[in-house]
Every structure is written in structure tokens, then in C-alpha cells.
């Protein structure tokens, strides 16, 4: 661990005040912030452990406890609250036998509550691994958990009628990213420029929400974080948020129908977020 942390610190050398980005990288690597890692960060940066611990406990996106494979967030914002979110959160607690903020014993689920996801009209909202469930009632909780165990992506592609085609464009120049000539999953693909290890080439994604089919000019190792660029204006498509699953940067694209879609930039990671209200922009 020591050498890994040293590597992360080296990367951030020079940017004073880069503690948060350092901690983000540490969390991306271990999925949480191990105590030992924080000590190495303290030694390496010359900051005191108290300060680092203070920052790590201040932000909700940092976790000091190992997190489960699946992250289940129940919205308890005002709108979802009045529509019965507390009952749903309670039902999740019962079904998973883990209280809010905790991880199940088998390390499968981490349950947490969030305050408003910007989709109030569809509430109560539950998000599991970046998949949105709307108008949830407590009798659906069991199904959601079961679906997650099976593998949300499979379940969605086969059965979810929310699966649909989306047309996306660059969030900067608004040029369409659709490539009708190159089909993936039988529909026009989304074409972007991908850059990794100093190689640039095209990358085509399936335009079906929930499908993770990808083709690229150069093979990309799984777990590799790829930089996405608009092939027209060459803007970096990286968005402001981090992947809820692996913490890599998310890539944001505009959905023609309104809103944005965000996908994880790590090859093989299933982090997807569709935000049709565009409240996250």
C-alpha cells in the first residue's frame, strides 16, 4: 500500500491544497479510505493526521468503511419524504438487514440515504449502482434487491421497458455525436475520440441506455480510465462528477430530448447516470 500511496502523492506533487484530489484517488483505488492509507498520506504530505481525518469525515463522498459491491441510495429529500421514502428506507433496512449508512455482512450492499436527486416528480426515487427506480413503493424493494443480485444491466436490457435509444451531442459545441453508419446493438452508435496512453482513436458506444457495448480503434484494457473528447470541437467531455461505483471521472453528454447522460470513463465499469431533468448540469 505504501508504494501505491506514494505513487498517488507523486502524481499530485506540486498542487498545494490538493488533499481532496489525493483522497479521491485513494478512494478510487481502494473503494474507501483505509486508516493506514491516511497515515501514509499524512507522512507523505507532512500534514497532520487530524486535518486529513477532518476532511475525510467532512465530505459525504468519502467513506472510511469498506463499501459493498452495490450502492443503494434511497432519496429522502422533501418530495420523496412526503411520498413515503422513510418507509422505503425502512424496508431496505429490513430486507438487507443493514441500517442506513451500513454495509451488509456479505459485502454486497451499502445502503445510504440522499437528500434529493432532482427527480422529485418521479419520487420516491431509489438509485442502485446508477440505475434509477422511480415511484418506488415498499413492495418493490424486494424485487429491486433481487434484480441487483442478478445483475441490473442484464435485467434491464432484457426486460426493462425504460430501455430506449438516446441521441446525444457534445455538451460544448452541441454537435451530434451520433454515427448512423456504424451500428451497435442494431442502432446508430455514439462516436467520440478516446485517448489513453498517448494513443488517440475513435470509440463507439451503444446508444441504448443500459447497454455497455463498446468498440474502439485500439484495444483498451479493462479498468483503464479513458479520456473522452468530442470529435468535432475536441473538448474534453469529462463532467464534474465522479462515478458512483468506482469514483473515476464521469463523461457527460447532452441528451437531445433534454438533460444529460453520464457514463463512467473506466473501461468495464458500469457506472451510468441518466438525468433527464438536467438538474445535475
Amino acid at each position, binding site marked *: 500500500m505504501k508504494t501505491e500511496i506514494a505513487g498517488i502523492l507523486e502524481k499530485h506533487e506540486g498542487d498545494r491544497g490538493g488533499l481532496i484530489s489525493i483522497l479521491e484517488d485513494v478512494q478510487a483505488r481502494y473503494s474507501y479510505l483505509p486508516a493506514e492509507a*491516511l497515515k501514509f498520506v499524512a507522512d507523505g504530505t507532512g500534514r*497532520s*493526521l*487530524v486535518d486529513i481525518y477532518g476532511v475525510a*469525515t467532512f465530505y459525504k463522498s468519502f467513506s472510511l468503511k469498506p463499501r459493498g459491491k452495490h450502492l443503494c441510495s434511497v432519496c429522502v429529500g422533501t418530495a420523496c419524504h412526503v411520498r413515503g421514502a422513510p418507509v422505503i428506507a425502512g424496508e431496505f433496512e429490513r430486507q438487507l438487514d443493514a441500517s442506513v449508512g451500513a454495509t451488509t455482512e456479505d459485502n454486497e450492499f451499502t445502503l445510504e440515504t440522499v437528500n434529493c436527486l432532482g427527480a422529485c416528480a418521479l419520487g420516491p426515487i431509489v438509485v442502485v449502482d446508477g440505475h434509477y427506480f422511480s415511484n418506488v413503493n415498499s413492495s418493490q424493494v424486494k424485487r429491486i434487491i433481487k434484480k441487483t443480485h442478478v445483475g441490473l444491466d442484464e435485467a434491464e436490457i432484457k426486460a426493462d421497458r425504460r430501455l430506449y435509444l438516446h441521441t446525444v451531442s457534445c455538451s460544448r459545441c452541441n454537435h451530434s455525436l451520433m454515427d448512423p453508419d456504424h451500428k451497435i446493438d442494431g442502432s446508430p452508435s455514439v462516436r467520440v475520440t478516446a485517448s489513453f496512453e498517448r494513443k488517440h482513436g475513435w470509440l463507439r458506444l451503444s446508444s441504448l441506455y443500459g447497454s455497455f457495448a463498446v468498440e474502439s480503434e485500439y484495444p483498451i484494457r479493462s479498468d483503464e480510465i479513458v479520456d473522452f473528447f468530442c470529435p468535432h470541437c475536441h473538448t474534453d467531455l469529462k463532467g464534474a462528477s465522479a462515478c458512483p461505483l468506482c469514483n473515476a471521472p464521469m463523461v457527460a453528454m447532452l441528451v437531445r430530448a433534454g438533460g444529460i447522460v453520464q457514463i463512467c470513463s473506466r473501461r468495464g465499469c458500469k457506472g451510468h447516470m441518466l438525468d433527464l431533468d438536467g438538474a445535475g448540469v
Partner: protein
Amino acid sequence: MINLKINGLEVSVEQGTTLLEAARFLGFPIPTLCHMEGLSPYGACRLCVVEIGEGPRAKLVSSCTYPAQEGLVVRTANERVLQARKMVLELLLASCPQSKVIQDLASAHNVRQQRFRQEHEDCILCGLCTRMCEEQMMAKAIGFRGRGETRSIGTPFDIKSEECRLCGGCIYVCPACQLRCTYTEPDKAVCGGCANLSPPCVEKENFDDMMCYMNPCVACEIDKH
């Protein structure tokens, strides 16, 4: 030099002087809780509020952190200021009624009751202990953690700190602690405050439930394993 007017009196002070220092220099008393000479100003308790400015733009500021400005007009004890102070004291009493320091301040300001939900906090987050630890003891063994409702003071990971010098400085300055730490000699307690105490350290098992961060504690010699 900076010239300002406090309660109608002209005073000139050096650049960087706080309103609190300037007022005290003139002999106007301003109560404080989280302020301590030798520690950096923190502005947590708001007990030291004074009113500055005039007319509709007059506003309340914490005098311990507000630097003197040329031509400033300051009132340290008008009706608005006294009301605000009473409110602060009521809130402090609501969160930490067992503190002798808060009790004394409340009684000095004629606050006899409080209207809020009664709590019995161990800590009012005044930050005296962390500043003591960092600035006078150069230890940085304790600090703030979390935020909002769950903000608290403690050592990283709530385990024995390797940096702690066991100096006792943190309990010495803690306004919430002074009464409770007579536990091992209960007869020394000055008032009936003990009736409200949360169970003292000897009856606790987790390090993070303990009321101070020293291990072993220099005051009562409890060893928190």
C-alpha cells in the same frame, strides 16, 4: 493608527486590533466564551456580539474576530446586542446545562431559563481544546471531525493519539469539562450540576465515548486501554 468610536468614545488602536481588544482597552466589558488570550480568534460562540454601523445598515458581528476599521461606530451593549447575547446563552444552556462556565455567564446576564429542547451535550464545539492543542502544545492530537449535526471533536479514528503529550491542556480549557472532571472526587463539585452529567468516563467502554482524549488520563488516571 485606526480611529473608531466605541459607545460614543473615540479610541485609536493599532492596525489588526480586534473590536474586543479595543473595547476592553476602553474598559467596556464584553463577555466571551470561545475567546482566549494566546489562542487565535475563532468566532464560534457568538457571545461577544456587538453592533456596528448605523441606521438600517447596523449589524451584529462577533467582536473577537472583527478587526477595527477607520471610522467604525461600535455599540457593545445596546438593547439589540443584549437580546442577542441572551439568546446565545439560552441556546448554550440548552445544549450544555451542566457547564459551570455557561451557568455563570447565564446568571450574570440574568438568563434564568431557556426555551429550547434540553440536551446534555459533552461539547459545544467552541474549538478551545483544538486550538490549545495545536497552538500552545504544538501537538495537533485532536481536531474537528464530520460536519453539521454529527460534528465532533476527537482523535483520528477515535483511538489513542500518538501525538498527544498528555498535557491536559484540552480539559483545562474546556468550558464543558471543568465540572465533570471532578468525578473521581465528587465532593469537590461546586453545585448540583452532577445530577445532569452523562455517565463519567469510568462507566464507559469505548474510547470515543470518553470525555477527554488522553490515554491514560492525567487527571483521573483512567487507562482507556
